[in-house]
């Protein structure tokens, strides 16, 4: 199982989900993608997106603070099949 990181900090929607979708397409079943975003709207966006994309599941979401003091929303996704 591989874990890949995707940094979309500072980018506004739809970019975080467009890029996450591209990465997920290239992954194998069981691989994980950790997405780091700064838009708080990304939290409900990822929750909504995984309901309509059948190839991905949302494992967890957490909030961290990066070196510049920004809140970072970390979304852990998994490729299903």
């Amino acid at each position, binding site marked *: 199982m591989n874990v890949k990181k995707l940094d979309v900090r500072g980018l506004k929607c739809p970019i975080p989900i467009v890029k996450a979708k591209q990465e997920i397409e290239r992954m194998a079943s069981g691989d994980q993608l950790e997405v780091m975003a700064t838009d708080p*709207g990304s939290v409900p966006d990822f929750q909504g997106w995984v309901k309509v994309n059948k190839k991905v599941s949302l494992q967890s979401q957490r909030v961290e603070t990066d070196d510049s003091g920004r809140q970072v929303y970390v979304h852990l996704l998994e490729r299903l099949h």
Partner: protein
Amino acid sequence: MSSALSAEVEEHSLELQAADLLAMIDAGRPLLVLDVRNEEEYASWRIEGLRPFHSVHVPYFEFLENPDDSIARIPFDTRPIAVVCAKGGSSSFVAEVLRDAGRDARNVAGGMVAYGDHLQARRISLGEGYASQLEIWQVNRRGKGCLSYLIRSADEAMVIDPSRRTEFYQSLAASLHARITAVVDTHVHADHLSGGPALANASGATYMTPSENAGTSGCALGDGARLRVGKSITLVLGTPGHTPESICLLMEGKYLASGDTLFARGIGRPDLGSDVRGWARMLHRTLRHTLSRLPDETLVLPAHYSDTSEIRPDGTVSGILGELRQSAPELQIANEEEFIAAMERATRPAPPSYPKIASANRLREPVAEDLASEWEIGRNQCAAARASP
């Protein structure tokens, strides 16, 4: 070169400004609003106009996954489609998908952030035959339900409770051939970032706040203070309750800029601090004593409204104190303990950004643009909820 230019022109015509969107809705022009934000954002805050309009909700990530099904969910008719999202990025993508499918779709530029920032000014009618030196302009931040005021007399102007789009007030003052000499905040706002310090700074005016929040700079306003703007006199009334430092401004003895103390249909909530009982007690005294001295015909000019139905046909929001005394149940509770209990029952959670906004306003700290937009999302929630019967 020429193709780049035509692309630019085309790009421009594919966008709709928040001001134009509101004007179309208010005028009842045929229009379909497609909101592509997520469920949570759509449920908590959306475009509102003076007339009902057809609104459809399909999140942008559904267009990303199932474009054909998503397009099929938009009613097919001749109405133009205004596509809106949080900041204008996702809606731009969806509008393009729709145009590729032959639909007349336009992106609402800047999304809900631009909608929430948009300001419009309307002159308050001061009554027939009123020929005073005073002119009152109400500046309505439609997306948030925030009201600020520009008072002009002779060649001077005072601005009350400005939003952070300070250039709007400067342009309004300039169009009235007046210079802004005073900027006042009626209290430490928790729902929006004050434009007061920046506006005062940019226009060479004095920034004034109630005594408890005067800090080391600026000018303190206490109960009984008098402000002169041109030829007009404004009296400061200490009206604690919504917050301990809240003031109202009584202009020419008749027009009350009531801050968050009185609204057109109710009162300001006393539960945004840590002491709802103490603040409710102050609010009751303010309502039963300080404001009870004002005549019934006093025009109430509030800092907020909760619902677009409060906007009058002339585009302004106001109340007549006498009518408010009859219609607002909160103003009819004579017993202090009963009032405090009612306010306690009406307590509800405040948006999580409110303490951060209040703190930045109190300390007069500038806040970065993206953070400011994030904090200011949503309509104001400053009115006291009606206690359930």
